[in-house]
């Protein structure tokens, strides 16, 4: 980004709604190349029932504060956080939000007004876990900071560039139109941040790079194929259920299997859907944990055969997707791993990059093991034609930058 200085500095508050967390960051912007975080925090275990209680962390220049408070909903979490910011007398100029699924209604970031809100409400059923909580945070922000302009960014928007060959489900036209069935794809903000950051790091324009990026999170995971900075295919589909094997989501399965299970084992549709979303994936296979760290710890124990199986399946599916995308891109320049598992789990990276020389990717095992979690690191060997990176994602920063882009457009 160019170094344009502003006359006055701006503060943008960014909210990022997870399924059981709410994080926020306040960015102080003095120019387009001068963006700093002046405060951040996260509400943990929002609405989670269990022995541990929920808490909110704040990190400001004064220091770190941790409040143990019961937080049942995202609305409550947002109320507490917003009042905390208000009491600190921080001047907030704009507030940005992340919305997972914009469906056919939204293809890019947009300022919030009455009409936007109406369309956001239409999107609620598309991502029943994420969208309603994000909307409640928007309403809360409006209530507590009524004068602050708000905007919303979409995880699905980055994939609005998918070509017909990638987004089409081959179902009868009337059905596709009625339900708007197409591949939407997710983790777009993360992919946007990671692809731009890599291009900057390599000092090669995005237009000249073919990339495959693996966003491996503790909740959802996906892969994207990026050609010239534009998403051309991704592993999640109409919903975030498909694609890779995830912590508790099944990823790709035979679609007929759902029907078979309902007919043969009398599964009720909602119970089966719930099982595919919350009891499948790593948890379903291993039988004891949805956390890949637990699985790695136990997978060499003879009695825990399913742990080994879960890990092998996780890696195999990911390798296959990388292969798929290498083929449709006609070769790649960059292979990147991001988010929690992507950055912190060196064994996953090592296994995924094994026997990948057919597409020119060779991992430097030593470097791979020594990766620092807080910065972009190149981990390919010198002979590798493909650059391999481990890179922490920063969705909040992209939400902030999207806000700046919106402001720029208005001028």
């Amino acid at each position: 980004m160019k170094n344009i200085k502003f006359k006055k500095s701006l503060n943008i508050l960014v909210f990022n709604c997870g399924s059981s967390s709410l994080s926020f960051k306040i960015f102080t912007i003095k120019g387009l190349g001068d963006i700093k975080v002046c405060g951040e925090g996260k509400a943990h275990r929002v609405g989670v029932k269990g022995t541990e209680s929920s808490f909110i962390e704040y990190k400001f220049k004064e220091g770190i504060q941790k409040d143990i408070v019961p937080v049942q909903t995202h609305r409550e979490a947002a109320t507490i956080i917003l009042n905390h910011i208000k009491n600190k007398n921080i001047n907030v100029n704009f507030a940005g939000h992340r919305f997972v699924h914009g469906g056919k209604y939204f293809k890019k970031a947009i300022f919030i007004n009455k009409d936007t809100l109406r369309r956001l409400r239409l999107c609620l059923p598309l991502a029943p876990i994420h969208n309603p909580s994000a909307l409640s945070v928007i309403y809360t922000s409006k209530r507590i900071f009524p004068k602050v302009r708000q905007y919303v960014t979409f995880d699905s928007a980055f994939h609005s560039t998918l070509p017909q060959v990638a987004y089409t489900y081959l179902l009868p036209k009337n059905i596709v139109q009625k339900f708007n069935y197409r591949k939407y794809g997710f983790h777009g903000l993360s992919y946007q941040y990671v692809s731009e950051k890599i291009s900057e790091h390599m000092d090669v324009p995005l237009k000249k790079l073919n990339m495959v990026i693996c966003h491996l999170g503790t909740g959802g995971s996906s892969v994207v194929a990026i050609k010239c900075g534009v998403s051309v295919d991704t592993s999640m589909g109409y919903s975030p259920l498909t694609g890779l094997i995830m912590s508790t989501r099944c990823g790709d399965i035979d679609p007929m299997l759902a029907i078979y299970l309902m007919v043969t084992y009398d599964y009720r549709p909602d119970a089966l859907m719930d099982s595919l979303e919350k009891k499948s994936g790593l948890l379903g296979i291993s039988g004891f944990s949805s956390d890949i760290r637990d699985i790695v710890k136990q997978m060499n124990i003879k009695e825990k055969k399913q742990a080994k199986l879960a890990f092998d399946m996780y890696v195999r599916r990911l390798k296959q997707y990388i292969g798929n995308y290498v083929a449709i891109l006609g070769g790649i320049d960059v292979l990147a791993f991001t988010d929690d598992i992507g950055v912190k789990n060196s064994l996953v990276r090592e296994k995924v990059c094994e026997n990948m020389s057919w597409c020119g990717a060779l991992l430097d095992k030593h470097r791979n093991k020594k990766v620092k979690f807080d910065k972009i690191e190149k981990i390919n060997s010198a002979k590798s034609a493909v650059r391999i990176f481990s890179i922490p994602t920063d969705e909040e920063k992209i939400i902030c930058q999207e806000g700046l882009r919106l402001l720029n457009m208005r001028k």
Partner: protein
Amino acid sequence: MILIFDSNPTQISWCKITNKNFLEGKCQLDERWTASFEKRIKDYDKIKKIAYILHHGGEYVKKPVSYLTPRTLDRLKKCAKFLPEYNELTYRIANYFIKKIPTALHMMLCDTSFFLSLPEEAVTYAVPYKLRKKGVRKYGGFGLSHYWAYRQIEPLIKTHNKRAISVYLGNNTNMCAVENRNPVEISIGFTPAEGIPSVSTPGTIDPTIIFKLHSSGMSLKEINELLSHKSGLNTLLNKKYTLKEIINNRDGIKKNAAREIYCYNIVKYIGGYISSLGGVEAIAFFCESPDDYKNFIFKICKKLAFLGVKCKANVIQKQTVSELTKRGSKIKVYCLQYNKWKVLNQYINGSLN
């Protein structure tokens, strides 16, 4: 004389092989089928072997070729639950002929046995493990043909490690990865609905869609019907075409998104399978009429040029196996002339075992 039976949901197709003559026919299984069948086959006393194709053998049928006796017929009956539309007919036919012609040798040719040796991580679905124990797994299909295809090109691969991908181009397109005669991947899953989209099937789709359709009022039977016959490439076109017509832009199909999507998916799957194999020596496409598919295969090869696939300018198919790539191509690409009955006959006479 050899008789082979293949069942599908609407009818039985059969083939009579005498010396080197292949006589094909089809019949409906109505009340009078035995009479009409006897009329066409005539000399029952000359039948030495009768083979039945079993499309889905579950985890029971472990060998591609096995003998059927009144005793082992039970095993066939057990398999009916897997693919009832096919397997029940197969059972009925076998049951009839074992009693009718007890002197002949009765054989069962199983299309899924080859895939019982797939690695566990390739067959398991990431669903609760108790379902795996109940038999929910990837069974694959078309194994007899894929193994045949691999054996055709095996002698042409000169490296010690022989990794190949075989692609069947036809109405139920599917793909298989093989390493040294062992299966590594198959696109067909628990049922043939999974995998590559084809003329009337959508391939792997987001399962959420199934639930949405169901909650909007479609019955499971209707969804089953939808996924088996009413989806696929044809949904993009104004009328029903065959795969051959679609890929050759025939009959005035203008902007052919269907062909592009088909090609895209095949390239995508090939990439995924190369990744699973960790590299590949040869890719074999097989189809009933190679001349109709040749241009399409060249189109696919062009997209694989980045892996060092170099195609010949023109190939005239004269034998079963023809090579499409030049000397020095890093990956060899072959096109095989495929005839189901001839392939099955090789299993029956033992030349493929």
